[in-house]
């Protein structure tokens, strides 16, 4: 429960009232934003101020990919601070991917030895605990994602015996969504054992109830062309790559449930395959305008992160060195576009709407690292944060809030964040900021 009330009298003591410490944390942020400086004094204008507040959505998250490029601890802590300034409450930590395995593993230390970019570019158990604690103090959950069985090149570097289609070149695009290719061999029981090891180890380290299993962008060719899988399918008539995938997901989801976790996964698992998970599973919709409604139609709880609105890395063009064109998800998502978007737009049934827990913006790091993280995230994630906490409906007019009225508040918030050490990007010429309604 993140609700709170805040009363600031003209004279005397302000009071924050909340059911939980997390509500109080939200109230404290609001209180800090009421205070501005005027002629060297700190003031609250327009007192008395009376606020009653509670979030519209309970899952208001930010995905950070620390595998494609590494982020030192201080940049993650700074991101958590910035999230707190915006009342965001879930750090979806996409900690590993094909490119690197930065996180310590006590069960499989070879993963970090072979997979981390360097000894300096790692997250030890201490680091992880520090992040979880820092986040909790800001009422932020840390939900880890271990995206298997796809995106597994880096696992194959340590365990080639359980990997397929490792770094196929030059035609990697037949086997993967991006280079280097590599997926776990879903027909190999050793891969299942390995995956169980990972789920078990990290279910203990990460205390959040939610554990994200990934499951996006699985490539069928990668498995079809693997001789052991060909053999398996030949020996098991009726089975196919698809049925193997379903079998894999069953085992993984069951394992997570056994470990006392709530599985989260990308929409591919339940929408692209004939796989039915328990209805406690939370599914993250990212692909189409109708993904969210499809997920809720199936009765799952859902998180909205449509790439065409919420993928904050898009707009920098392709990162393949010989291609001067767009990336798959261009163009850049503007704050205006993010603000105008209502995640519930395509869901009319109120029962289904209730299944939407919230949303996430995502920062995939192919072209981002700690030199860019602040400006890629902010203030666009702040625009998203308001949609998640407040919605974009103006109750007075019963229509979407006018961007011309939102802009000054967003820009003020941007300057506040800059002053607090977040290098949020500028939104307009300063002249426009000072002359609202003129730009």
């Amino acid at each position, binding site marked *: 429960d993140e609700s709170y009330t805040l009363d600031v009298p003209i004279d005397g003591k302000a009071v924050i009232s909340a059911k939980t410490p997390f509500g109080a944390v939200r109230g404290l942020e609001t209180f800090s934003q009421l205070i501005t400086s005027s002629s060297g004094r700190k003031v609250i204008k327009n007192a008395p101020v009376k606020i009653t507040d509670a979030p519209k959505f309970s899952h208001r998250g930010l995905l950070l990919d620390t*595998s*494609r*490029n*590494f982020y030192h601890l201080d940049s993650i802590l700074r991101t958590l601070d910035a999230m707190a300034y915006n009342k965001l409450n879930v750090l979806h930590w996409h900690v590993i991917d*094909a*490119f*690197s395995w930065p996180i310590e593993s006590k069960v499989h230390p070879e993963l970090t030895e072979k997979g981390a970019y360097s000894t300096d570019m790692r997250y030890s158990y201490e680091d992880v605990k520090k992040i979880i604690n820092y986040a909790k103090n800001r009422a932020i959950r840390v939900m880890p994602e271990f995206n298997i069985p796809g995106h597994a090149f880096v696992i194959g570097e340590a365990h080639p015996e359980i990997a397929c289609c490792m*770094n196929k*070149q*030059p*035609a*990697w*695009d037949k086997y993967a969504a991006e*280079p*280097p290719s590599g997926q776990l061999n879903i027909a190999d029981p050793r891969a299942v054992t390995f995956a169980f090891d990972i789920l078990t180890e990290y279910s203990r380290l990460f205390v959040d109830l939610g554990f994200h299993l990934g499951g996006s962008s699985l490539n069928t060719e990668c498995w079809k062309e693997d001789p052991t899988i060909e053999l398996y399918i030949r020996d098991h008539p009726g089975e196919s790559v698809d049925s193997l995938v379903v079998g894999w997901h069953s085992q993984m989801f069951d394992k997570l449930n056994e470990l006392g976790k709530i599985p989260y996964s990308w929409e591919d698992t339940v929408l692209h395959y004939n796989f039915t998970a328990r209805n406690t599973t939370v599914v993250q919709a990212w692909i189409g305008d109708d993904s969210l409604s499809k997920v809720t139609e199936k009765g799952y709880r859902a998180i909205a992160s449509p790439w065409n609105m919420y993928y904050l890395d898009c*707009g*920098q*063009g*392709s*990162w*393949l*060195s*010989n*291609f*001067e064109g*767009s990336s798959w998800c*261009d*163009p*850049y*998502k*503007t704050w*205006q*576009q993010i603000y*105008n978007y209502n995640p519930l737009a395509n869901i009319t049934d109120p029962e289904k709407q209730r299944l939407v827990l919230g949303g996430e913006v995502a920062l995939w*790091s*192919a*072209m*981002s*690292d700690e*030199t*860019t993280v*602040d*400006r890629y995230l902010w203030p666009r994630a702040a625009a998203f944060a308001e949609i998640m906490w407040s919605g974009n409906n103006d109750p007075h007019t019963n229509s979407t809030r006018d*961007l*011309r009225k*939102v*802009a000054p508040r967003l820009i003020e918030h941007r300057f506040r964040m*800059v002053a607090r050490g977040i*290098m949020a*990007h*500028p*939104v*307009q*010429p*300063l*002249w*426009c900021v000072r002359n609202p*309604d*003129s*730009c």
Partner: protein
Amino acid sequence: MASAALASIWPLPLVLETGTSNTTVLGGSIDIGYSTSSILANAANRYINIINSELFTSPVDYKQGDVPINGQLIGLNVVVSSTDETLGLTTDESYTLDVPTNGQAILNANTVFGAIRGLETYSQLITANCNRRIVKNTPVHVVDKPAFPHRGILLDTARNYYPLKDIFRTLDAMSYNKLNVFHWHVVDSQSWPIQSNEFPELQKNGAYGPKMQYSYADVKSVIAYAKDRGIRVIPEFDVPGHTYVVGESFPELMSCMNKQPNWNNYAAEPPSGQLNIAKPEAANFTNMLVDEYTDLFTDNVFHLGGDEVNRNCWSEDPDVQAYLAAHPGETVESLLVNFYTSVHNNLASQGKTGMSWEETLFHSQYTPPKDTIIQTWIDQESIPNTVAKGYRSVASPASAYYLDCGHGAWLSNQDGNSWCDPFKTWMHIYNFDPLANITDPSQQQLVIGAEVALWSEQTDSTVLDGRLWPRASAMAETAWSGKTDANGHVRTTAEVASRLHDQRFRMVGRGIRAEPMQPLWCARNPGMCLLP
């Protein structure tokens, strides 16, 4: 692998010969002999510091163990033959650099500015291997000079302000890329940060705040800092458009001040406002300003702007209408010609060469003086069109070289793209050829260079480095090294990616927050992140 075989220099030198030995660098000593040049002394000190504090290893070499060492470098001798320190379009920036397997390296240049270019190359030859500084593949022989003499960055300090330290850091980064023109777009409609002794109100009313200004002393320190790095500072005072801010002090000089909400009928972006060219005071005012700033800015070239001039702004101004009614035979176009004639002639009388945007040549009836440098931006055809008319051209086509594009519209209620989206990737920038469609060699000569532009509607200190780098480096190589190798082969982005990664990581190590090009895995595994 490319980086292990060849020295990783950016931009690529004209001639780069390498050997098969490796040499440790005993000390970063740089000896300038009997030279009394303070520019050279400053440069030597600067590079001694860079070399002694830098421990750069290419991502490609991250697993490399101890390389075998065949010799020691005891230092670098720098020999400069001329004491002429004039910095301008015809300054000789050539140099040769020899780094033996054993002994003393030698840098020869005709001018101190050539020596500065050579020092940068020397610093890039030195990499770290297991905590030693080494030069790989010695002996190294470099012969180098630029393909184009004008290689610049335009920085707009009016839409948003940049403190001096950002400008200094940008000049440093430019020197790491052998860029040599800082095109300072110092004022525009939104603010006037620079001190004016002639019209102090301009800064008083026009600067964003007392801490967002450039004093005379600031400007001089920028010019000196730049000159120490062989970088010219070309100021731009954009007239007669883009001048709303002048009206904050002198409303009587203006037309169409801040028309709302339909500013788009009167200007390319809000707030609207142009000098009233029907009033002789407008040209007089401009000329007085130019007289002031041609003293402060020492470069021979002075940019008068002239872009995005809106005709409605004048034709709907009652004042202008009254003037035209009283002066049959005159038109808005003829008034514009008179204005340009006055300001360009005045500039010439100050002994300066004018630079202006392509509109003065192509979108007005004015014929600029023949020595005017035309900066083309609207489309790529403007470059051949400019040189076909016999004018020198600086290429900065928006479609390739505008670094601000790609972040959507900045107007509060607009949810779409900006006019110049999409984002220009480094590959797109690298692939652009300023000489495309110009076959006549005498016309090719008229393309004196290129500029990338960082317009600041959506940029300020917080994002400056990332917006500029490493994309400006891509242009820097086109401008220094041209598009082709000695044997005529056109360099591809796949071939140069490794070297640009090195340059990016090197710049980050030197304090420039250049943005990453790819996942680090791709930087370490050249050739594995290509489109099949």
